[in-house]
Structures are given as C-alpha cells and as structure tokens.
C-alpha cells in the first residue's frame, strides 16, 4: 500500500522531529480545545448558572438545555427544522457540487467564445456582499411562488459561484495527459469528465461537499427571510429560542453542540473517503 502522507517513510529515523511534531500539534490543539470546552461546560448550566457560575465544571450540571431543544412542540418543531435542514443541506450539496463541477470543467478545460468574460462575470458577483442580494432574491423567490418551501431555501445556494471557482482551480491541477489518453480511446467530453476527471478530483469534491454542506447548514439570514414556522431550518428555528432582550447562554451553547454533530460526521466521512481515494488511486504525475 502506498503511504497517504508525504515523508512518512522517513519517520523511522526522525524520532526527535516526530516528538516536535506532536508538541506543536498538542499546543495548537489546546488553543482550539479550550473555548470548545467552555462551550460544552456552559451548555450544561441552567439559565441562571450560565451567567452566575463561572467555573469550568458546572456546579449544578443539567441536561435541561438539551432537553428543551429536543422537546419538539407545535411552536418549536425542532425535529421538523432538523429534517428541513438535512434535506436542504443534503440535496443542496449534491446538486451544487454537480452543477458547479460541470461548469468548472468547461472553464478549466475547454475554450469557447465568451469564456473569459463569463468567468469574470461570475467571479465579480462572488465579490459582492451577499447581504446585497437579500431583497431582490426574496422578490425572485416570491415571484416564483416558492416562499416558505424547500427549493426557496436551496436556490440561492445553488446559484453560488464559489464551487465553480473552487473546482476549476482543482481541475487545472489535474494532468492533461490522462484526459488525452481517454480521448484517444474514443471517449467524448462527458465520458472523460465522468470516468477520468471526477475520480481524480475526489479529494476536491469531498472538500467542496463539506464546505457546501456547512454553508447550507449554518445559513441564517436567508432562511429567516424565506421561511416561517415549521418551514424553517435549524438556525432560524433555534434563534426563536433566544430571548428578545436577554441571551440564554446555556441554550445557545447546547444548540451549537447539537448542530455541530451532523457536520462533524459529514466531515469525518469525507475525510475517510479522501484518504481512501488517495491511497487507492495514487495520483501519478
């Protein structure tokens, strides 16, 4: 089996370097883990303790915050929001990766009239503050009669240009010779794309999927405008549990812990998939 990482073959004779590596990793890990521990600690404190009890270990630990979030009711249909979030993020990610990969391939590999101008136009909109689009996008969605529907929550994300830019940059790095070989074998563009380019781009696709999934999953302002009640996703839904004047810190953190779990799962699955694809395909230059 080929090694997944570089320099691994040297690990045997570089013991001190190995120790150094771990020291650095653990130091950085502390920086990342400390606020997360505070988050978990706060999530286990009641509404008053969340501001009164400033210890790392809750004096009166409670799962009330989690229970309150998970107790679905007519006003706070948490599982419905969760389901909506899962559909929007899951289907949205699949569609988005598909649409943007196709488009990106043409921008990376085929010359056609208007390509430069079109690509510049796409990238330019990437530079615009997204809050700009809020009102006109609402008008479009409303005109399409899609207010408070799943497609309404998905469409602006699907229009996003990020994936096109992202995949194009990765496609540019794939050696042309591989495609040429497939072409000589008589494959057309679509077949080359499907059977040569996409498999080689698996790490990129997995990464883009994670990024896109998270963008859908955490989107807050757009769903707030485009949905209401049980048509909403999780972030605007959880926001209705927060007070108008007073923040419920424990509840906020419990919500964050719960909402993070699915994304972490997606990430770890994607990671595994990347590692497998790299080890099995073993990209050659």
């Amino acid at each position, binding site marked *: 089996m080929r090694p*997944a990482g570089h320099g691994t073959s040297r690990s045997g004779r570089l013991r001190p370097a190995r120790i150094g590596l771990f020291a650095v990793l653990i130091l950085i890990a502390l920086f990342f883990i400390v606020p997360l521990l505070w988050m978990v600690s706060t999530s286990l404190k009641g509404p008053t303790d969340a501001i009164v009890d400033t210890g790392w270990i809750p004096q009166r630990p409670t799962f009330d915050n989690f229970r309150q979030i998970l107790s679905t009711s007519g006003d706070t249909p948490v599982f419905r929001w969760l389901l909506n979030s899962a559909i929007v993020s899951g289907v949205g990610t699949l569609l988005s990766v598909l649409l943007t990969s196709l488009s990106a391939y043409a*921008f990376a*590999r085929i010359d056609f009239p208007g390509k430069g101008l079109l690509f*510049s136009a796409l990238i330019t909109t990437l530079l615009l503050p997204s809050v700009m*689009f809020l009102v006109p996008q609402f008008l479009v969605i409303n005109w399409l009669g899609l207010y408070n529907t799943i497609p309404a929550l998905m*469409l602006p994300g699907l229009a996003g240009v990020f994936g096109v830019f992202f995949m194009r940059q990765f496609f540019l790095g794939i050696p042309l010779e591989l495609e040429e070989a497939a072409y000589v074998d008589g494959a057309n563009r679509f077949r080359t794309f499907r059977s040569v380019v996409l498999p080689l781009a698996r790490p990129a696709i997995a990464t883009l999927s994670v990024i896109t999934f*998270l963008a859908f999953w955490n989107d807050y302002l757009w769903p707030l405008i485009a949905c209401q009640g049980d048509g909403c996703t999780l972030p605007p839904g959880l926001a209705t549990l927060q007070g108008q004047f007073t923040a419920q810190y424990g509840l906020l953190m419990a919500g964050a812990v719960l909402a993070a779990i699915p994304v972490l799962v997606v990430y770890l699955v994607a990671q595994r998939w990347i590692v497998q694809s790299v080890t099995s395909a073993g990209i050659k230059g």
Partner: protein
Amino acid sequence: MTAIPGAAAPVTRGGDTQRRRRIGEKWYTPYLFVLPHLLVFIGLIGIPFVFGLWISLFAYDQVSPSSPFVGLQNYINLIDPQSIHFGFFWQGLWNTVLFVILSTPTLVGVGLLLAVLLNNRFRGRNFFRGLYFAPWTLSVAVIGVLWWWILQDQGGLISNGLKGIGITPPSWLSSNPWAWISILVATVWWTVGFNTIILLAGIQAISLDLYEAASIDGASRWQQFRSITVPSLRPILLLVVTLQVIASFNLVGQPQLMTGGGPPVNETTPVLLYIYNTGWTGRYELGEAAAMAMVVALIMVVVSVINFRFFASERA
C-alpha cells in the same frame, strides 16, 4: 460587468494549445457544461445584481409609496464629505481593509502550516483534523459569545486568571490594538479550518512521485516544501487567498458581537455593518446601501485583479 484580466488565463501547467476544443467536438458542448449552473445563477444572482445596480440610482425603499430616481446621488453621497454617510462609510471601509490586511496573511499562513502538519501520517490524525475543523461548524453568534466570555474585562476568563496571579491585563476588547488582535485570534480559531481543509485537499492531490524523486535526489523537507509543495499548490493558493480576501471583506459578526465596533465606537466597525444598518434598519435606505455595496465590490475587484496578476506573474 467588469472583467478581471487574467482570471480566465491558465494558471498552471498545460498551455493554451492543449485546452482548445477537440476536433469533431460540437460547438455547444462547453455551453452544455456551463448551462445548468448558469441558469440558476442568472435567476438568483444575475438578476438580483442588476436589480441592485438599478436601485442604487433611486432613493429606493421596499415599501414606501415613493422611490424617486436620484441619479448618481447615492454615489455622490459617498464622496461628499458633507453627507451623513461619508465619515461612517469610509471609516468602516478603512476598518475592513485593515482587517483584510491583517487577516489574509495570518489565516492563509496558519492554514498552510496546519495543512502541512496534518498531512503527516501519525496516530490520532483524524482527531486533530476534526478538532481544528470543529470551530468552523459553529455560528458566528456562538463565536461572539464564547470569545466575549473569554476576553471581557469584568470577570472574563483570561482577565480573571491574570488578575489572580497579580497581573493587570489590558482591556482586550476595548483598547487598540488589542481589540483587533482579539478579533483576529477569534477569527483564526473559527475559520482557519476552512483554509486548512482546502489546502490539505490540494496537498493530497500533488503527485507522490514528485516527492519520491526529490527524496532520492536528497532534497530536504524544507526544499521539498519550497520546490514541490508551494509551486504545485499555486492554483489552490490563489483560490484560498482570493476566498480569504472575500471572507475578510465580509467581516460583520465578530466585531458586532465582540467589540460592538469599539473601543468605544467605530474603531472596529466594519463597512458591511454600516451598509446593513443603512439598508435594513433606521430609515431603510436600500438604494444608498446598494450604492455602498457596489463601491465595496469595485474595490474588491481591484484587489482581486492584483491578486490574480500576482499569481499569474509568479508562473514563470
């Protein structure tokens, strides 16, 4: 629409000759690739963009009975020192640009460092990958509250700890440069995982043969990094730098929730917060907000052109 020179130019190995249309290929083939995304794009970004450009010429208000045409007045307001928006807009823009300058090298640099570290094979690698990535799954509301608890003066975790051992800490959130450093640290904690996973995917896509060959030639790890990793990563670095510049320009939540724009006022208020407040609160001046957004976008186009040029010229 402003064109970005160099944006569509080839940035990596493989010349123009090799990417031409193949003999016998239909003229519409590339358009079939582009079309599905383009249709959604036109509907939900293209049209809204034109709409934004259009309303920037009006004293536009979503619901007010009259939205009179004002020509370029919304733009003139931004260059007229006597207008009510002038000072706040440019102060906000300066704050945002300062953050872009501070954060882009930091976040790309730290991201690259983490990606290289995580590309090693070692026990518990998935744990570390998951950990560095984890904060990025959180919403900005959570980030703001967490770092507020850590940094605030009266009972914050760090201040309390330092006072406990007899050190009087500076006011992390309401004195400069600490306020900016606090925002930067919180942002690194929150988003560096994003850059890391993209760069990691980029590193993983580099052919192992290159390293093996270099290794046989006796190149050190550092030499390998400089002569193989960085050049091979160039398209991905361009991507990451561009995305980082965009993300940093879109700074809103961290100062809003950590410093409230202070030390006391408007030292860390980002321009987007002012745009948001102009268009969506108070007098709901959406036309003026659209004009501001266009100016910000124009500046970002200039920055991006420089960015693309830089990476294109490094090619040789």
